[in-house]
């Protein structure tokens, strides 16, 4: 293709595009498609003014830090705040204060507790270390759980109701859809979960197949 023809075609296309932009319908279309692209691209962290709980008329939405600004540089996750909070703390990406008062004793414990799950799910490994990095012993003991292992009857039903682990997991810590993060110790020889008698098997089916 000779250079001149190419240039002419390019100019024609460009002027056509310019004319198109000048027409209000197409301009509106371009604007809306830009907005659409932007909203899907920014879908991870909404601006405070659009999050549904801040009053967009409040001056706070212009002053307060936006989630995207604070969270985008941190180790990502696909759930919750889309931040892998335990890793973020371990890697030193954030350095949150451990105490306000000088007399407070910061308590930490590095001890894993294995909870043998009923019903064929992989057993649960509860690591004290990451929990005590964030929390104090009194947050769980002896209110939510007894101190000695095996003394607390832990059930998924209670957890899903927001009790026991569910006080945090599902509300502020990673959500209950992340089964394998707790049920992390595979059972030898079992490939399928065994549903004990007396339990509605539909709760073990994938979303959409169970009860309405």
């Amino acid at each position, binding site marked *: 293709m000779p250079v001149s023809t190419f240039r002419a075609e390019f100019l024609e296309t460009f002027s056509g595009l310019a004319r198109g932009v000048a*027409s*209000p*319908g197409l301009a*509106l*279309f371009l604007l*809306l498609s830009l*907005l*659409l692209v932007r*909203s899907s691209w920014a879908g991870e962290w*909404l601006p405070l003014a659009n*999050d*549904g*709980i*801040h*009053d967009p008329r*409040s*001056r*706070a939405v212009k*002053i*307060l*830090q936006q*989630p995207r600004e*604070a*969270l985008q540089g941190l180790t990502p996750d*696909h*759930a*919750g*705040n*889309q*931040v892998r*909070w335990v890793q973020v703390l371990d890697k030193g990406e*954030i350095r*949150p*204060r*451990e*105490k*306000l*008062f000088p007399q*407070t004793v*910061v308590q930490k414990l590095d001890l894993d507790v294995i909870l043998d799950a009923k019903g064929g799910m992989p057993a649960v490994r509860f690591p004290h270390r990451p929990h005590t*990095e*964030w*929390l*104090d012993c*009194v*947050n769980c003991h002896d209110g939510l759980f007894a101190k000695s292992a095996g003394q607390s009857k832990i059930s998924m039903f209670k957890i*899903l*109701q*927001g*009790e026991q682990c*569910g*006080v*945090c997991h*599902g*509300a*502020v810590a990673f*959500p*209950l*859809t*992340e089964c394998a993060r707790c049920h992390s110790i595979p059972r030898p020889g079992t490939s399928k979960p065994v549903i004990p008698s007396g339990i509605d098997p539909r709760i073990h089916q994938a979303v959409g197949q169970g009860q309405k």
Partner: protein
Amino acid sequence: MKSLCNLLRKIGALSLVSFCLATVPATTQAEYADIVINRQAEKNGMRPVVFPHWFHRIRFRCKVCHAELGFKMRAGSNTITMTDIIEGKFCGACHNNDIAWSPENCDLCHSGKPGLPTGVFGGHETSGPGRW
């Protein structure tokens, strides 16, 4: 003919706008673990308080508020009053014009939509305790 074209264009644009409005999801997605505190606020003529966990946990570990300051880990179970805050309890342990802004900046915390009930909002996959 020209006016017909214009009319068609207008109809097209309008249908496009309504299509976009219908497909863009309603923006009610609070950030995971955002808490609305409204036991006292609206009764006293203020907007509900929005407490963002994500912002605070970058700066403080859970234990600071939930062990040292005595916030119970259940939305709605704490009786938080402005008197306590001004005396340095609860939020006032930091919001004292020293660590964080002072309680005089009412509308920075009282920034929620009127009518919201106290509770955990937001959620990427689940919507807080008892709902999954």
